[in-house]
């Protein structure tokens, strides 16, 4: 076992333990904290798999931004202590069954026909032998080991054309050493703007729609206030229970009292 192998096992174990913590914690905030641990462990795994940029993104976006959202939502809903799911026997049995099936599948997969160990450190020749995806390169191309397989197009395009399918496909081979020689972020960027430029642009649309949704679904439109006032005028207003006033942002009361009274000391 090399250093990297040991670290993979440690990070993997941490990921599993923290993932279990997410579903088994009795308080939502502990679940959220376990999720942070899970995401950081995954970032370490990405790092060990030679995906430095992805590791950084994982920490910045998930452990950073997404977790902020989670914590805000927990604060927004302010849920109390939940029943521990462990006490529900059916949930326990169901969970155990899922774990069993998943483990079985992966054991089957590891012993299966294609997946083989030792990929990251293998030489280019063994990779070509081990992964069926690379077999197509062998079939159409003399199996010479390209020192810079980042010229992926040269390998893949002739085969694509030979098969009379669409030209211009990028079947790109990446060997870790070559990637690191050029720079991990640089290679990611290069791929993002060549092979994956369409998904990249769709992402911007997706983010725009998400922004519209976040604003639309949470804003208080004139129509909503009118409807709320109409509803409130039909039945007598409920006396607000002291001490546990609802946050006005989510309160189902008309806006007028919230806007005038109730100085909110945050």
């Amino acid at each position: 076992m090399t250093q990297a192998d040991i670290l993979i096992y440690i990070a993997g174990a941490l990921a599993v333990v923290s993932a279990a913590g997410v579903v088994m914690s009795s308080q939502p905030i502990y679940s959220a904290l376990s999720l942070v641990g899970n995401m950081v462990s995954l970032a370490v795994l990405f790092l060990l798999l030679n995906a430095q940029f992805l590791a950084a993104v994982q920490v910045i976006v998930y452990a950073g931004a997404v977790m902020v959202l989670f914590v805000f939502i927990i604060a927004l809903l302010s849920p109390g202590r939940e029943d521990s799911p462990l006490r529900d026997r059916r949930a326990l049995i169901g969970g155990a069954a899922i774990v069993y099936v998943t483990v079985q599948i992966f054991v089957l997969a590891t012993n299966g026909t294609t997946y083989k160990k030792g990929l990251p450190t293998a030489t280019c020749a063994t990779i070509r032998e081990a992964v069926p995806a690379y077999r197509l390169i062998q079939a159409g191309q003399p199996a010479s080991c390209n020192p810079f397989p980042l010229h992926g197009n040269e390998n893949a395009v002739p085969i694509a054309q030979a098969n009379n399918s669409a030209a211009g496909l990028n079947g790109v081979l990446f060997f870790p050493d070559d990637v690191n020689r050029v720079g991990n972020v640089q290679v990611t960027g290069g791929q993002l703007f060549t092979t994956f430029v369409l998904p990249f642009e769709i992402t911007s649309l997706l983010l725009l729609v998400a922004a519209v949704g976040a604003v639309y679904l949470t804003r208080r439109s004139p129509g909503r206030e009118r409807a709320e006032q109409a509803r409130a005028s039909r039945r007598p207003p409920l006396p607000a229970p002291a001490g546990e006033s609802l946050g006005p942002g989510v309160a189902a009361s008309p806006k007028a009292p919230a806007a005038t009274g109730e100085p909110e000391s945050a």
Partner: protein
Amino acid sequence: MLSDYAPILVFLGICVAFGVGVQALSAAVGPRKPTPEKELPYESGIVPLESARRRFSVSFYVTAMLFIIFDVESIFLFPWATIVRDLKIFGLVEMGIFIATLFIALIYVWAKGALRWEF
């Protein structure tokens, strides 16, 4: 290659050791005479007015959501910036479209008043 990350590990170790050490030191050396006032949550020396477990305004959520959206945008800028010269005019145009789309999002969010802070 893995040894490149050794400083991070050392840094992590120092952080944990410092945190644990300070707590342990305070527990071991500091005098401890609890009174009801001292048991209250710390709120800048003022007696707490109400429970900390109250609902937050939905504005926090919108802000966090918008933060994620523009955070993801900045993530995409990073790999682009490292090879901006190689990408030439193509990269500039593609990134221009990307940023323009999200600029529209900013205009929309702004015009709808979602950035105005109201409780």
